[in-house]
């Protein structure tokens, strides 16, 4: 029922058509269509349980890991369907990284966390790995805090630092798209603003799709916003349009706080 809403004049990095996601018999996403522009931040908003996280996880085939989850429709990355039978989900997740709701560093040192990705993809050169670690930690705005304790446990970092480490860990595998599932929801306001600044930096190089509970956050950091309700993708547009001139009454109700 929702027409694909392409955003003109921008390169399209990902495209979703006719996406349905089921958990057993329950349909969590109903016929979602969306184009994701390259090197912009797109926010997914909507009340709890509306399917925005489910949608996000369909974009790098994380549902493959959930028993009983089933995905229909097409999701393309640079025009290639990531669900095509000849596509390796491992490659998909290499190109489309993910940052989770709760910081989930490995119980290893900070350094080992960052180089985990490069190592599994075959990089063994110590100097090269150190370079990658520094570059990624700098990009994640964690280098100054971490440089003197690279070989200490990542679990000793604060929650906000851990989340930036998780972002650094994703950057280290040089993805093209970064999916973030409420990356700041478990963090305090200062840590949150650091993550938000970081996302502003990241979009110069990466396409970022972020699920957020906070409409203020969506308004602050995103260029485009998609609104989900009860498994349906109701409306997509530039963030300023969605927040000032929503087309759908239900979007307006949510934005103005009359929902969830």
């Amino acid at each position, binding site marked *: 029922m929702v027409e694909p809403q392409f955003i003109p004049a921008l390169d399209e990095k990902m495209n979703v058509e006719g996406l349905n996601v089921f958990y057993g018999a329950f349909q969590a996403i109903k016929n979602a269509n969306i184009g994701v522009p390259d090197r912009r931040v797109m926010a997914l908003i909507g009340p709890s349980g509306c399917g925005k996280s489910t949608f996000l996880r369909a974009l790098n085939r994380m549902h493959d890991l959930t028993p009983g989850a089933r995905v229909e429709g097409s999701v393309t990355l640079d025009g290639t369907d990531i669900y095509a039978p000849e596509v390796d989900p491992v490659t998909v997740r290499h190109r489309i990284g993910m940052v989770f709701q709760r910081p989930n560093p*490995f119980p290893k040192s900070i350094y080992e966390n960052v180089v985990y990705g490069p190592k*599994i993809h075959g990089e063994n050169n110590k100097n090269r790995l150190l370079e990658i670690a520094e570059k990624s930690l700098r990009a994640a705005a964690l280098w100054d805090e971490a440089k003197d304790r690279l070989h200490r446990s990542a679990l000793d970092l604060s929650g906000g630092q851990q989340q930036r480490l998780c972002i650094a860990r994703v950057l280290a595998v040089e993805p093209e798209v970064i999916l973030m599932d409420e990356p700041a929801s478990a963090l305090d306001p200062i840590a949150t603003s650091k993550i938000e600044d970081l996302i502003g930096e990241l979009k110069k190089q990466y396409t970022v799709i972020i699920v957020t509970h906070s409409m203020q956050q969506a308004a602050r950091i995103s260029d485009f916003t998609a609104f989900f309700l009860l498994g349906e993708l109701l409306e997509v547009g530039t963030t300023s349009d969605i927040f000032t001139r929503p087309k759908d009454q239900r979007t307006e109700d949510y934005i103005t706080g009359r929902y969830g």
Partner: protein
Amino acid sequence: MARAIAPPAPLSARLSGDRARSRRIVDRIATGLLWTSASTVVGLLLIFVGYLFVKGAGVVTWHFLTGSPSASEAGGGVGPLIFNSFYILFLTLLFTVPVALCAGMYLQEYAGPGRFRDLVQFSAESLATVPSIVMGLFGLLIFVQTFHWHFTALGGALTLTLLNLPAMMRVTQEALAGVPATLREASMGLGATKWQTVLRAILPSAIGPLTTGVVLVAGRIFGETAALIFTAGASVSYGKSAYDFNPFHTAETLAVGLYQTHREALVPDADAIGNGSALVLLVMVLAFNVIARVVGRRLTIHFTGKA
């Protein structure tokens, strides 16, 4: 708003009263019962260990620990028996750990819910309930008689492998199940394959409980008797050396030796040897439990940087 709220009863009334008093008494009795039960367990252990120490401490000398058993004279030692215990333990772990680790990994990480997993789980649980004497007779039938190995260290070790595979598999499964799902997602999300995830993210995180589990099972293997009497034999190999590495030689362990001493020993100091052996066995098994904790914690710190 207009409805008046009844003022709470005065504090003193709520805290005294018959009901409050009887509740307090029941609470005291329950606490007392639980404390007594826990103390009984600790007390029994202390009495048991203390008794063995009093009886056995005088017997355990360097000569007793290293000397060879004697057939008919007093003054024999249990050196080869201790060696055999460790040797059979080593062989058993050599067979058990890799198979149990892989099976547990498969069940926990790979097998989705389904018939095959249920079947393996059911088989393992059934195998775990087989009494060790039955397993010993099975080993007798297979290794001793069918294979014509006679009583051998290898036959004993293989029998113990059958006996302990289920427990070891369970240990593996539980250790892996304790690793948070978020670590799996993190690893897979970085483009790791399933195998890379298991090997580099999950196993290192589970190494502590895994080691603890393995050493605890090892302690059980060390004390096992019934399964060995008819498979590894109840006499030490009188080859060239008392410390015999040939897996096809008979190998009486300390636990089996203890049983034999009380059953049919001809030596005049059988009681003393029995007391000494019991003490050595007990100390070894306790040592395994302590080692399990220490090593498990050390490895966890080493692999995860955090206790």
